């Protein structure tokens, strides 16, 4: 690179770095002096803006909020719970989560059992009605001896044949009908 260009790029880089430090917080919130650490006026920030600032500020940066002054480093230190407190907290949360999960599981198991039980109870009641109705039908004559069904089937066939039967065939049909009538009487009809 040409020496002049190198000097130019170094200068631009330095200016940009300076600008970045200056704009670490919105313009009016940072009042860094030429020698001291930057100062952030947090009163004028949203929580999200402050969180973004915390990513960039050096530990020495001074933060002012509602008349209180602290440093970014102190806030970061407070962001970590003391080890013993953190351990107790973590265990307490884990224990509570576990207990909650167990209780929820138990409640679901009970609800599911109740639901399935209700489903079965309804089905049993319906089935009892179905069986009663079935018995009533059987007694009412809807069910018949198997021979009756065979007779009925053959009678249907005879009926079909009779529509186009010759006199000779009609005589045969008549004869067969007589036999079926006798069978009917045997099955109690």
């Amino acid at each position, binding site marked *: 690179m040409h020496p002049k260009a190198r000097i130019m790029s170094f200068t631009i880089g330095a200016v940009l770095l300076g600008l970045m430090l200056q704009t670490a917080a919105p313009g009016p919130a940072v009042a860094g002096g030429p020698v001291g650490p930057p100062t952030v006026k947090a009163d004028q920030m949203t929580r999200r803006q402050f969180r973004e600032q915390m990513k960039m500020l050096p530990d020495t940066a001074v933060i002012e909020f509602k008349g209180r002054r602290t440093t970014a480093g102190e806030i970061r230190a407070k*962001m970590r719970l003391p080890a013993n407190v953190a351990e107790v907290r973590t265990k307490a949360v884990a224990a509570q989560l576990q207990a909650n999960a167990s209780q929820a599981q138990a409640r679901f198991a009970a609800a599911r059992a109740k639901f399935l039980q209700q489903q079965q109870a309804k089905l049993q009641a319906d089935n009892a009605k179905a069986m009663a109705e*079935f018995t009533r039908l059987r007694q009412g004559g*809807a069910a018949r001896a198997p021979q009756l*069904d065979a007779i009925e089937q053959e009678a*249907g066939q005879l009926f079909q044949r009779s529509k186009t039967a010759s006199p000779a065939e009609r005589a045969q*049909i*008549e004869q067969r009908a007589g036999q079926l009538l006798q069978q009917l009487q045997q099955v109690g009809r």
Partner: protein
Amino acid sequence: MAQHNRVSRILTFVALLVLVLAPLTAEAGGIGGAFADLCKKIDCTCIGPNVKQVMLFSDFTPNGYVAIKGCGFGSYGTGSKLRLVGDAPAPYKLDVTLEIKEWQGGLIGAHIPVNVTGVTDQPAKFYVVTKNNVQSNQSQQVQFRAAQDIKLLPMADVKSWCSTEADEDWCNGTKADSTPFCFATFGISTDGSASAQHYTCHDWIGDDNGTDEFQATLTKGWVFHDADWTKVTCGSDQCGDYTGSTVSTPVGFQKDTTWTKVTVDWNTNNYHGYAGYNIYMYIIGPAGVPHK
């Protein structure tokens, strides 16, 4: 002569009467006497297995009983069947052979097997198949109700919109946001259908509260049935309701719907405040059928 004429007239009348009536009787079966008597006692018009009536006195559901009336079923034998066939598209179409309890001529009693799963609720029709493998007409349409199951909606099927107002925010086991230097101390819980954990490392500036949202959609006959929830809230050194962190009761859950949106308000606006919760959504639908 007059006598002869009268007899002749009577004979002619009788002959004409026979000629007129013969076609009529032929149309009605063509034969009188025994055949007419037979048809008075039984239904001579029953051709083949013919389902006439399905007795509607119970749900058509697995483990339920049904009765079919008709004629021409024949005697029971190998090959005698009662089928119930639904009209849902595959693979959730019902096509089941019932367990025959009684088969008596014109009346069949049968049981829908208890292990019929993987089918949705659907209109269905019965068919009788005789021992000679002759299938009947289709019955009237009935509504088949699948066996119902109830289960927990998996977290993977719930979409979350996680509020990121705390220093570290997790929803459904996924980190939505975090702050450098914030060393959160809690475990991530992925129990239930939806969960969230919010942690505030410092309470210097602003409020740490937000609203998380969860949505889920069900298909294939599944609907939301019930919801349950649990929470854990903590301050810096202890957990409980008195620590300042809060989780409000989830709102928006609606039962008997196929879509739900649940929102939860939370607050961790205190030093090392923690708010975590789990939501359990229970869904109900046809057993063995996926819910999405």
